[in-house]
C-alpha cells in the first residue's frame, strides 16, 4: 500500500494502531460500502479480506444488470475511496482466527498469510511477473488464461501489489529459482515470510463474506469438467470481459473459435432437493443470464442465444423490462424446459442438449458453447466462520437471521450484510451494508469520532501569477486504450500543444500508486493544470480531483479527456484514426484546461435533525435507528395512526409476527423522547438544501416549520384495485390482502370454503404497469399455506405466469406443492376468465400442458393485485425535487451503488416507495437509509460543489430570464444601488447551466463550464481551419 503523506491524525487522539470501532470481514461490495459508510459516520474501520485484493465477486463481473454498467468501472473507484479514507485500514490476504469478548469490546485474532511480498515496498510494476518462469492458470480469470506464479490478482487490485502462489512457486516448492528476488528493483520480495498473527480490538464485527458459486464439477453436472465447451456463468462473465482471458472476444475454450450458438441452462445447483443441490432459488441467475445474452448479442449480433429456463424471476426494479429487452432480440429463444446434456461431438467439441416443449416434444440440439447459470452457495468457510464468531447458521448454511432484524446475527455486536444473509444482488448487498452501518452506529454511538481521523490536504498553491503549465497524462487503462491508441505518438503530440509543459503516460492512472505518481509530477514539474486522457469523469473524476488537491493545486484545475469510451472502445478496429481522434480530444481538453479557474467548495453547517416522511414500518424503523444514534427525528404520517401498510399484514412466510412487531415498534417510537410524531400531517412546502431544509407541515389546520438536515421518504405503496375478474362486482373475488384480513378475522366463509383459486399478476406485468410487483407470489404462497393449515382439505389452485418465489421463498413454493396446492401456468395472451356460476365461481384457463381449456370451480377467488406507487408520490417528488421512474416509484441516484439515495443530496428513500418489497427487505432498506442519513448528520458540515452559477452584476440587465429557467429556485433578484440584479444561492444550484443559455448578456455563468472554457474547446476541435480556409 502506498503510504499517504498527507494522512494525519486529527486532534490529539493517541490511536493505538490495533484499536478500531468495527472489523469488517469480507471486502466485496457489501464490505466496501459498509466501510465507507461507517468511516464517514466517524468510526475507524478494519476491512479484512482473505483474498489478495478487496473487490469480491463484483470485481469478477463484466457488467451489472439492469443498467449494464461496467462492473469494475463502478466498483474500483470505491476501492480507491477506501484506500484513501483515513478511517479505513484495508488488510488483505488475512483470515480471522478467533473472536473473544462481547459487543462493544471484542478482541479478534487474525492471521496474515504470507504473500512473500513486502506490501510497502512493492510498486506493482510487474517486473517480477515478467521474469517468473512458472505459468499457472489465472485464478482471477477462473483458470481460463495463464498467469505467473507471482502476479497481481487483477489489474485494478487494491492494494496493487503482487503475491506469490506458494503451491507453484519453484523456490517455495523445491528451493530453486529466486529469479524474482533478483529482478525486483525495490527489494520487495521476501520468500521467507511467515504467517503473521495479530490482534485487533473493536466494538463491533460485521460479517460480509459474500457467497461462493455452486460448483458443478462436484457432481459433473451437465458435462461440466468433462466437456471443454461447458462453462459456468462466472467463467462466461470473464470471457465477456475486456480484461478477461480472451480480451473481450467471445471465444470458447476448446478451440478459441467464436461460438455462434450459445445455450444457457438455468437453475444449475439451485431449486434442487437432490443431494449436492440447493433447495433455494439463487435469486440473481435469471437476470444475470439475460444480461449475458444482451452483452453477447452486443458483441456479435448474429449469434444465436438459447436460454433453457424454469420460471423467469424478473422480480426486481426494472428487471421485467430488462427481460423483455433480452427476449425481443433477434435469434434469442427463451425455452421453458428441463434439459439433459446429450453428448460432446468428438470432431468439434460441440455439445448437444435434449429438451422438451409442449409443441414439439423432445428434441436434441447442438450448441457451440453451453453456459451453466450456477447458483449461489454459502461461503465455503461459513461453518468455520460461524464457529469462530459464535453465530448460528440457517438450514441452508447461510447466516441465521431474524426477519424482524435481518442485519443482526444471533450474537450481539456481530452483524451481517450482503449475500451471507442469503442470495441477493448488488443493490441489496449495498443496502444491507448501509443498514449494518446504522446498527453498528446504534451500538457504538457513544464512541463516535473518538478514534476517527481526518484527511488533511496541503495548503493550496496560489497559481494566479504563474504562467500556464499544463501537464498531460495519457492512461493505457491496461490494454483498454493502449492496444488501440498509439500512446507514445499521442504523448509526443500532446507535448507540442500550447501551454503544455509536460506529457507522460500511465498504465492505470486509477491505481493508488499511479495516482500518487501524478501527484508527484504536479509537484516536481510545477504543473498548474492537469489533463488526464483516460476514461470517464462519471466514475473517476473525484479521485483525480483529490490527486490535484494532494499536490497542492486547486481540484478544479483537473480536466478529463475521455479517450476510452469516446475513442478506443468505439474505434478499436481503426487504430490510426483512433490515435488521431485521441489527439483531437486531448487538444480540446488542453484548450479548455488553459481557461480553468480555481474554485472553492464551501462547507455548510448541518442541522442534525432528521425528517422522516411516512410512519409505516420503513419510516418508523429509520426514525428509531437515527434516534438511537443520538439524532432528533420528526416523523410525519398522513394517517391518524402509525403503521402504514403493515397494519394489514399479519404473518409472513419466514415466520414474523407482524402485528406484535408493529405494536412494539409503535410503542418504542412514542416512548423515544427524541422522535416527534406528527400524525394526520401533510407537507405543504419544502425549502432549503442538504444540511438545512425547512419543511412546512400542516397538522390539524396548523402549519409548522420544521428545520432539518436530511429527509427520508418512506411513503410506501398501495394495493392496486383490480378492475378485472369480477372484482368489485362479486364479493367472492377479493385481493390477497383482503383474503389475509379475512383469514385473520376468522371470517366463516373462509372456514367454509372448499375451493379457492388465486390469480397472479393482476394489474402488472402488462401494458401500462410493466413491472413485477415482487411480493405477490410470496403472498399467494403464504395465504395458500395458511389456508391449508386451517383446512387441509381445501382445494387451492394458483394460476400464475412465473412463480417468483426467489431466494429462500422457494422452499415454501415446494411446501405448497407438496400440500397439493396446484400450480397452473397461463400466458398473458390467454388470461383466465372468471364468471359467476350459481353459488360457485367458474374459472376457465387454458392448460398449457394438456393443450385444452381447464374449467375450475371455486368458492373464492383471490387476486394477487399489483403494488402501485402511493398516491402522494408525485406530489412529494415535486416538493422534494426528486425524480420518479417510469412506473411512478421513486428513482434512486444509482441503481447499483446508491440504492437508497436520491440524486438530490440529503434526501433518501426506503421501503415500498422505492419499489414493492417484503417486510424484511423493507426493514433492511429502512436501516440502510438511516445509515446513509447518519453519514450526513454525524458530520458537522457538508461540502457543496464549486461548479455552480454566479452573476456578473455589471452585465445583468434584470430581465429575469435566468430566474424563470431555474427549477431549483436558486436565483432571485436582489436590490442593489444599480437596480435589481440576479443572485445565485450557490448551495441550491445544481450546475445544469440552463440559465446560461437563456441569459442574453452572458451575465450569469456556470463556473467550470463558462463560455470561455467551452468556446476554447470548440475552437480546439478544428484548430487548423483558420489556416486552411483563410479568405
Amino acid at each position, binding site marked *: 500500500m502506498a503510504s499517504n503523506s498527507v494522512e494525519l491524525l486529527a486532534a490529539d487522539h493517541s490511536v493505538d494502531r490495533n484499536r478500531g470501532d468495527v472489523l469488517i470481514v469480507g471486502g466485496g461490495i457489501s464490505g466496501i460500502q459498509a466501510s465507507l459508510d461507517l468511516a464517514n459516520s466517524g468510526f475507524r474501520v478494519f476491512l479484512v479480506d482473505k483474498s489478495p485484493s478487496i473487490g469480491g465477486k463484483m470485481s469478477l463481473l463484466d457488467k451489472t444488470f439492469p443498467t449494464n454498467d461496467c462492473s469494475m468501472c463502478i466498483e474500483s473507484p470505491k476501492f480507491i475511496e477506501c484506500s484513501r479514507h483515513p478511517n479505513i485500514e484495508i488488510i488483505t490476504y488475512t483470515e480471522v482466527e478467533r473472536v473473544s469478548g462481547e459487543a462493544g469490546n471484542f478482541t479478534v485474532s487474525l492471521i496474515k498469510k504470507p504473500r512473500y511480498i513486502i506490501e510497502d515496498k512493492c510498486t506493482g510494476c510487474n517486473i517480477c511477473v515478467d521474469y517468473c518462469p512458472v505459468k499457472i492458470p489465472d485464478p482471477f480469470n477462473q483458470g481460463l488464461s495463464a498467469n505467473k506464479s507471482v502476479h497481481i490478482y487483477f489489474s485494478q487490485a487494491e492494494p496493487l501489489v503482487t503475491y506469490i502462489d506458494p503451491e507453484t512457486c519453484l523456490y517455495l516448492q523445491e528451493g530453486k529459482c529466486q529469479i524474482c528476488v533478483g529482478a525486483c528493483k525495490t527489494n520487495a520480495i521476501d520468500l521467507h515470510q511467515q504467517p503473521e498473527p495479530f490482534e485487533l480490538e473493536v466494538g463491533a464485527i460485521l460479517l460480509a463474506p459474500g457467497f461462493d458459486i455452486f460448483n458443478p464439477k462436484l457432481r459433473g453436472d451437465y458435462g461440466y469438467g468433462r466437456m471443454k465447451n461447458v462453462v459456468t456463468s462466472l467463467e462466461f462473465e470473464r470471457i465477456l470481459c475486456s480484461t478477461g482471458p480472451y480480451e473481450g472476444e467471445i471465444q470458447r475454450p476448446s478451440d478459441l473459435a467464436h461460438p455462434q450458438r450459445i445455450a444457457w441452462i438455468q437453475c444449475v445447483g439451485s431449486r434442487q432437493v437432490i443431494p449436492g443441490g440447493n433447495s433455494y432459488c439463487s435469486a440473481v441467475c435469471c437476470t444475470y443470464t439475460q444480461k449475458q445474452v444482451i452483452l453477447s448479442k452486443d458483441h456479435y449480433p448474429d449469434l444465436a442465444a438459447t436460454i433453457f429456463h424454469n420460471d423467469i424471476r424478473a422480480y426486481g426494479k426494472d428487471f421485467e423490462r430488462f427481460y423483455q429487452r433480452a427476449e425481443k432480440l433477434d435469434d434469442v429463444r427463451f425455452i421453458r424446459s428441463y434439459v439433459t446434456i446429450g453428448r460432446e461431438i468428438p470432431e468439434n467439441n460441440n455439445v448437444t442438449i435434449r429438451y422438451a416443449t409442449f409443441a414439439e416434444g423432445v428434441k436434441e440440439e447442438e450448441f457451440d458453447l453451453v453456459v451453466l447459470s450456477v447458483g449461489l452457495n454459502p461461503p465455503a468457510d461459513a461453518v468455520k466462520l460461524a464457529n469462530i464468531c459464535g453465530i448460528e447458521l440457517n438450514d441452508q448454511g447461510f447466516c441465521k437471521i431474524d426477519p424482524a432484524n435481518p442485519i443482526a446475527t444471533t450474537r450481539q455486536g456481530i452483524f451481517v450484510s450482503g449475500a451471507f444473509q442469503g442470495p441477493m444482488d448488488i443493490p441489496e448487498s449495498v443496502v444491507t451494508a448501509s443498514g449494518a452501518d446504522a446498527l453498528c452506529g446504534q451500538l457504538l454511538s457513544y464512541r463516535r469520532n473518538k478514534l476517527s481521523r481526518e484527511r488533511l490536504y496541503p495548503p493550496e498553491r496560489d497559481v494566479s501569477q504563474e504562467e500556464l503549465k499544463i501537464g498531460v497524462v495519457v492512461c493505457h487503462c491496461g490494454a483498454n486504450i493502449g492496444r488501440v491508441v498509439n500512446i507514445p505518438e499521442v504523448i509526443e503530440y500532446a507535448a507540442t500543444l500550447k501551454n503544455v509543459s509536460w506529457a507522460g503516460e500511465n498504465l492505470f492512472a486509477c491505481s493508488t500508486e499511479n495516482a500518487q505518481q501524478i501527484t508527484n509530477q504536479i509537484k516536481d514539474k510545477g504543473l498548474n493544470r492537469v489533463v488526464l486522457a483516460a476514461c470517464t469523469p462519471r466514475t473517476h473524476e473525484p479521485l483525480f480531483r483529490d490527486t490535484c488537491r494532494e499536490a497542492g493545486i486547486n481540484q478544479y484545475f483537473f480536466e478529463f479527456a475521455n479517450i476510452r*469510451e469516446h475513442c478506443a472502445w468505439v474505434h478499436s478496429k481503426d487504430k490510426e484514426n483512433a490515435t488521431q481522434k485521441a489527439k483531437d480530444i486531448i487538444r480540446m481538453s488542453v484548450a479548455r484546461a488553459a481557461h480553468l479557474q480555481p474554485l472553492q467548495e464551501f462547507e455548510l453547517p448541518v442541522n442534525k435533525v432528521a425528517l422522516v416522511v411516512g410512519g409505516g414500518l420503513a419510516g418508523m424503523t429509520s426514525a428509531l435507528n437515527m434516534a438511537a444514534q443520538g439524532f432528533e427525528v420528526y416523523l410525519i404520517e398522513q394517517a391518524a395512526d402509525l403503521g402504514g401498510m403493515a397494519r394489514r399484514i399479519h404473518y409472513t412466510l419466514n415466520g414474523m409476527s407482524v402485528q406484535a412487531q408493529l405494536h412494539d415498534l409503535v410503542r418504542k417510537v412514542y416512548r423515544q423522547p427524541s422522535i416527534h410524531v406528527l400524525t394526520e400531517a401533510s407537507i405543504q412546502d419544502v425549502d432549503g438544501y442538504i444540511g438545512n431544509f425547512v419543511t412546512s407541515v400542516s397538522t390539524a389546520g396548523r402549519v409548522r416549520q420544521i428545520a432539518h438536515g436530511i429527509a427520508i421518504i418512506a411513503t410506501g405503496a398501495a394495493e392496486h384495485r383490480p378492475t378485472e375478474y369480477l372484482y368489485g362486482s362479486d364479493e367472492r373475488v377479493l385481493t390477497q390482502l383482503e383474503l389475509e384480513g379475512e383469514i385473520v378475522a376468522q371470517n366463516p366463509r373462509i372456514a367454509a370454503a372448499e375451493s379457492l383459486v388465486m390469480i397472479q399478476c393482476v394489474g402488472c406485468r402488462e401494458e401500462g404497469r410493466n413491472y413485477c410487483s415482487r411480493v405477490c407470489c410470496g403472498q399467494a404462497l403464504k395465504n395458500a399455506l395458511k389456508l391449508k393449515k386451517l383446512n387441509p382439505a381445501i382445494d387451492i389452485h394458483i394460476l400464475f405466469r412465473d412463480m417468483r418465489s426467489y431466494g429462500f421463498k422457494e422452499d415454501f413454493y415446494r411446501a405448497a406443492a407438496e400440500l397439493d396446492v396446484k400450480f397452473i401456468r397461463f400466458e398473458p395472451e390467454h388470461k383466465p376468465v372468471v364468471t359467476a356460476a350459481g353459488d360457485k365461481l367458474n374459472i376457465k384457463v387454458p392448460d398449457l400442458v394438456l393443450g385444452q381449456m381447464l374449467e375450475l370451480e371455486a368458492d373464492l377467488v383471490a387476486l394477487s393485485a399489483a403494488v402501485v406507487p402511493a398516491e402522494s408520490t408525485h406530489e412529494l417528488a415535486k416538493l422534494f425535487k426528486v*425524480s420518479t421512474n417510469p412506473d411512478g416509484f421513486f428513482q434512486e441516484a444509482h441503481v447499483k451503488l446508491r440504492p437508497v439515495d436520491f440524486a438530490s443530496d440529503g434526501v433518501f428513500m426506503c421501503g415500498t416507495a422505492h419499489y414493492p418489497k417484503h417486510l424484511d427487505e423493507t426493514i433492511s432498506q429502512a436501516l440502510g437509509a438511516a445509515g446513509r442519513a447518519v453519514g450526513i448528520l454525524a458530520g458537522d458540515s457538508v461540502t457543496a460543489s464549486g461548479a455552480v452559477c454566479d452573476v456578473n452584476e455589471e452585465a445583468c440587465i434584470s430581465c429575469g*430570464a435566468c430566474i424563470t*429557467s431555474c427549477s431549483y429556485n436558486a436565483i432571485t433578484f436582489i436590490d442593489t444601488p444599480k437596480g435589481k440584479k440576479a443572485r445565485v444561492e450557490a448551495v441550491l444550484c445544481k450546475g*445544469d*447551466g*440552463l440559465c446560461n443559455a437563456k441569459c*442574453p448578456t452572458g451575465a450569469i455563468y456556470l463556473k467550470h463550464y463558462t463560455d470561455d472554457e467551452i468556446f476554447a474547446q470548440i475552437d480546439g476541435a478544428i484548430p487548423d481551419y483558420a489556416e486552411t480556409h483563410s479568405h
Partner: protein
Amino acid sequence: MCTGRVDLAFILRAYSNGADGVFIGGCWLGECHYVTEGNYDALFNMHLGRKLLQEIGIEPQRLRLEWIAASEGIRYAEVMNDFGKQLKTFGPLGKGEGLAPDILKLKLEALSNLIPYIKLVERERLRVRFDQQEKYDEYFASRDFKRLFDELIVDRLVRVQIQLLLAKKPLTTAELAVTLGLSPATAARHLKQSTMQGLVRFDTAQQCYALA
C-alpha cells in the same frame, strides 16, 4: 451540465470554425437527471437553430439532436455513423450550399451578433413548452411561427449583415443588393429602415451608404 446549457452561440461557433455538422446528445425526454427537464429547452433550441441556419442559407439538417442514455453506447455509435454519412452527402459547409466563403462567414457573423437579441425575443415571443416531441415539429412548421419569425428575426438579420458589410467600407445600394442576394428594392427598404434607426447614413458626397 445539461443539454439545455448548449448555447446557440456554441453551435454557431462550431460552424464558424468550419464544422460541417453539430451534434447534440441528451437524456431522453422524461428522463432528466436534474429536475429541470432542460432537454425540452435543448429541443426548442435545436429547432430554432435549424430555422436560423436555414435563414442564412445553411442546410438545417447539419444540426442534429438525439436522445441517448448513458447505457446506449451502441445507439450512440449508430447515430453518429448515420450523421457522418448524412454530412458527407451535404458536402463541406458552405460549398454544399453554394455559399462563397466570405458570404458564409458574413452570415454566420451576423447571426452570432444577433444572439443576445434572439434570446430576448425567444423568451418574450417565441417560447413554447409541449409534452410531446411531435408538437415541436408542428409548432416550428406552423404559420404562426413563421409569421413571428419573419417579423422578429428575418429583417434584423439582413440589417446586421448590411452593417457588417458597411463596417468594412461604404457601399451603394446596388452593391449591397448583389452581395446579399437581395432585390434592389428590398435592399433599399432595409437601408431606409436602418437610416431611420440611425444605424447607417447616406453619404451624399460618395453616393453610397456608410455606418452612422
